[in-house]
């Protein structure tokens, strides 16, 4: 099936995207974020990042977490391009919330078949969730999970669990016999211990989670198949978050370059500032075009979704690194301070850069598809 030229990005999708932007602009300006998450610069602080649950409740009521849930499970079944448009705005606001984690979980559940319909319905009703499947070494291949299921119980530890401190449920990938299955379990179920990681990113939280004889519902027998099918969406949505955040970095730095004066000129006069900022813009645009192409492939050309999602996340990872670097450098001394908001996005972006695979990792997977694997 060919892709529609306009990505299938409908008026409804545009409305969703721009109302989200407006919502954050009114309700969550960056100074609010700074006050919320950067109140204590001591690295020995308590590590669960603060977040605005009341605001999140409003978004839940607006139905954000059920956008991606299939209609068959009482969701809205919106196309991936529409969801990506929304996620871009969440990234632009660097809004701390479990939306991305819940969307990732939703895409995996939706790839599980009927057995996961119950879990999907919970999400449609407002339950939030995150994936627990990464090993201690940070492998993005879920078959490397260190959690084991036997006799219906989970044991082991999942690492790098995103926004674990904000969600209601874990979707756990566990080794079972010679295969891997997926389990659905409440974050406060008996036998679960959530250890918050001390992370750099102030706008998200992360944990490693111990499972000790935890009873959990199996929602999918062939977990790797479902995860593989959902992986393009996971990468694409994170990439959408990155380009939104990068656009904030670009615009904020350009604004500073328009107003900060040195040598009797706004510093944007100097090509040493102007041209790298243009290159940031170019990098963002590349990533953004690739994000919507990948999202559209998820909707219309699933055979090429993996290929395009690798392109999108590779490009977004480069964008995250480059936009962050230049945002601090061009803010000069002030950019190096805790009080300057660019640090918030810098840290979020460095987190996103590596999350679910960095640029080189995705290019390696892409090469296997385009050029064939090397035996």
């Amino acid at each position: 099936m060919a892709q529609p030229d306009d990505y299938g990005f409908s008026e409804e999708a545009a409305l969703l995207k721009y109302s989200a932007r407006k919502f954050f602009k009114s309700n969550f300006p960056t100074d609010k974020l700074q006050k919320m998450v950067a109140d204590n610069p001591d690295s020995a602080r308590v590590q669960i990042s603060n977040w605005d649950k009341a605001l999140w409740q409003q978004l839940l009521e607006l139905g954000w977490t059920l956008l991606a849930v299939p209609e068959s499970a009482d969701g809205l079944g919106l196309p991936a391009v529409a969801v990506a448009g929304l996620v871009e705005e969440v990234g632009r606001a660097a809004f701390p919330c479990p939306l991305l984690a819940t969307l990732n979980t939703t895409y995996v559940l939706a790839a599980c078949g009927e057995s996961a319909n119950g879990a999907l319905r919970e999400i449609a009703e407002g339950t939030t969730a995150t994936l627990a499947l990464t090993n201690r070494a940070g492998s993005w291949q879920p078959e490397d999970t260190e959690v084991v299921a036997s006799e219906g119980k989970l044991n082991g530890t999942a690492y790098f669990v995103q926004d674990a401190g904000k969600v209601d449920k874990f979707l756990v990938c566990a080794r079972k016999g010679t295969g891997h299955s997926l389990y659905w379990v409440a974050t406060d179920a008996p036998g679960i211990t959530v250890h918050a990681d001390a992370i750099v990113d102030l706008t998200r939280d992360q944990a490693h989670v111990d499972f000790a004889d935890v009873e959990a519902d199996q929602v999918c027998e062939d977990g790797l198949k479902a995860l593989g099918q959902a992986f393009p969406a996971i990468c694409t949505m994170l990439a959408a978050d990155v380009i939104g955040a990068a656009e904030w970095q670009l615009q904020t730095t350009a604004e500073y370059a328009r107003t900060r004066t040195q040598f009797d000129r706004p510093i944007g006069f100097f090509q040493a500032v102007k041209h790298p900022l243009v290159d940031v813009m170019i990098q963002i645009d590349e990533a953004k075009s690739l994000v919507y192409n990948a999202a559209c492939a998820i909707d219309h050309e699933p055979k090429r979704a993996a290929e395009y999602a690798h392109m999108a996340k590779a490009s977004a990872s480069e964008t995250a690194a480059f936009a962050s670097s230049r945002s601090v450098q061009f803010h000069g001394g002030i950019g190096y301070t805790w009080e300057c908001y660019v640090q918030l996005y810098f840290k979020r972006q460095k987190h996103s850069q590596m999350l679910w695979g960095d640029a080189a990792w995705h290019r390696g997977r892409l090469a296997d598809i385009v050029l064939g694997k090397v035996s």
Partner: protein
Amino acid sequence: MSESDSKDTPEQAEFRQHCRDWLCDNTPAEPSFRLPISALEIMTEEQLKYLKDWQKSAYDAGLVGCDYPVEYGGGGRTNCQRIANEEMHRAKTPYMPNIIGLGMAAPTLLHHGQEELKKHLLPRLLSGEDIWCQGFSEPGSGSDLASVQTFAQRDGDAWIINGHKVWTSLAHFAAWMIILLRTDKTEKHGGLSYFVVPISSALGQGVTVKPLIKMTGETGFNEVLFEDLPVNDGLRLGGLGQGWQVATTTLLHERDAGELVTPRSGGMKNAASHNADTANLIDLARKTQYNGKPAVQDPLLRDRIMQQLIRETGLQENQRRARVPALLEHPARLQLQNKLLRSEIAQETAALALEVAGASASLYLGDENAPAGGQWPLAYMSTYGNTIAAGTSEVQRNILGERVLSLAKSK
């Protein structure tokens, strides 16, 4: 990458079918002689004739000037040129020789020309009977285009032109030139006017064309000297002193952003006999041994080839996204990147191809062992034409920083 025909309008769908049918029977056979890498390096009459014949037959079939009004020799259609170009690309046709006419002169004429001029000039331009060239740059006016000195002295109803244009591609075959002239020495931008002037008919009578040689060893561009050439005021486009504004239309088209203003008149953009693209690069990497195994299996080269594929796909997708206003942060932001990115990505792809070729990258045109007939070193050097001409990459970044990011002007 993506098919783009699922959203054709009924008119487009019907036209696409027409193009396919016609191209199926009429795509010309490869010539017995070598074609240059692009229309800008046409050196022989033999090459020119072959390419002019192709343009004429495509024009007669309605594949050129599709979206131009019928009274100017066009097809009178809407948003169909892109369809024709896509189908010609798919059919791997040759490029069109009148690249400057189609790409720059026609849209400028359409936008700024007087009715009579348009009726007189456009049909022969579209058919390729008249080859056009562009007289903008001068020895002292490259990046700083508004500083042109070639002077037009008023003389009744006419102007007398004296001066020196340079890097003038196709001037040695051109019937007409679009030209930026100084009509007032007291103002920089405001002292410029824009004309179309006959070239071939004035050779030896006020016009001298001297070929220049490129670093590749090819010819194709020229110096053009004007000595007391009289030009009628009726050949002026736009008002007196409005030359810079008219030139802006030309430049937008030259820099792949013309659709912001007027439709393109036809012909594929930047068509070349050997594209410095990843498809060709991957082909090279499959055929080349590197460190004792196929280059396509080398992990570092794989990574760098993917970098180029991603950049290239990103640029294609930019062009697609530019048509979806809801996904744009600024109306001209993507189009103004096109020329810069196209030229720089091709330069990097060609540079990488030379590394893939390794020792064999030393072999040039005419060497029997040269990979791809030596086209890669040629392509690599040719890319500098593109990062320099039509506004250097440095100028493009200024434009983007100033027009899109509203940063202070750098000059």
